[in-house]
């Protein structure tokens, strides 16, 4: 048993970790995975020495609709100047009980 979902990945500064988690809460998203990453981009080197130059990557499996809601919220933030790097992929969920529930 498996089902189609979207895998959305959000890369942002460690500093904004709680900001993004609040968005999850607002949308009723209770499950996610996260880990620290390094990176380089328009905002320079994120070498992981201090909180200010560390990135965090969030990984969430969501339904298409929920994902679009989340993207919308993130884009509001992005318009304010926050740098969230957001992309999504098609995924197939194989844990059976995770297919039953929405979110």
């Amino acid at each position, binding site marked *: 048993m498996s089902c189609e979902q979207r895998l959305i990945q959000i890369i942002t500064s460690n500093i904004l970790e709680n900001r993004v988690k609040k968005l999850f809460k607002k949308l009723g998203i209770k499950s996610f995975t996260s880990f620290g990453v390094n990176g380089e981009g328009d905002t*320079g080197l994120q*070498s992981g020495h*201090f*909180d200010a130059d560390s990135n965090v990557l969030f990984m969430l499996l969501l339904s298409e609709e929920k994902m679009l809601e989340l993207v919308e919220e993130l884009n509001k933030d992005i318009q304010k100047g926050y740098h969230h790097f957001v992309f999504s992929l098609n995924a197939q969920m194989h844990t059976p009980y995770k297919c039953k529930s929405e979110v």
Partner: protein
Amino acid sequence: MGLDAILIPAILFFALGVFAKVIKSDLKFPEGLSKGLSLYLLIAIGLKGGAELANAELGLAIKSIMWAIVLGFLTPIIGYMILRFRDKIDRMNAAAITAHYGSVSAGTFLTAIAFLDVSGIEYETYPIIMMVVMETPAIIIGLLLAALARKQLQQQEAGETVATPWKSLLHEALTNGSVVLLIGAMVIGAISSPEAMEKVYPFSHEIFMGVLCLFLLDLGMEAARRMKAFKEVGVTLVAFGIIMPLIGGTIGMVVAASFLGFGVGGTLLVAILGASASYIAVPPAMRMGVPEANPSYYLTLALGVTFPFNVLVGIPLFYNLSIWYIG
């Protein structure tokens, strides 16, 4: 006082770190090590400050704190005016950058303490309290300048006015991890019995200098890594990263020697408070509160320009200036 003065292990390890990256060595610290080291250093300095605070003269302590607040507000305003001169740097970046100079780099401050310790020069401990105090005023000034800039921009663009979420930003500034850790360790150092503190000393005092060496080694590498971004940051900002510590350090020196009556040791420490730019407490506050500014600018300046300048030039320079000034 010649080259000898900086031949102390802490500064030499910093130089080793820079050197390693200049020769493109693959020397690398594992993830999390520098974060752990900087937690340790904040706790150690906090405990030390707290234990001293318990014996401090109340009047002078309060006077120091007030001057620390003045320094914290004054330096960023001067910095902002410099950066905005002939519109060189846009408002948002100017606000975010200068906030860093109102606050303090704990690493530089600790290096200055190591410098004094090793040279056997006495120093007042009030600057430790001042360091803690100086973490926040600069953040507030930075947010304020950015809020003003935001309003002006929005009026120009005639767009919708986004209100600055002051409450959450101030909360952020006051509950910043390093601020909480420093103040918390200070309180613990002040209220714990001396016997209890003695059990903690081998950890917080004795291995301190060695841990600082390790930290500075890593920071040397990081500083050198940041130097690569000089080109993108531009000559104006790099120059600012050297001029600003000279201004801030001079103000600090005058405050310490003339208004607080400190000796050479204490004066050097306050000069360094004025000269140094925060790279731990302020960047998160600016990321959060001034998202429009480019973190690459302020991190490059604080870590890649001002920090190495202070460690290698600022400390011996202000030491000699202090001797000269105090007479």
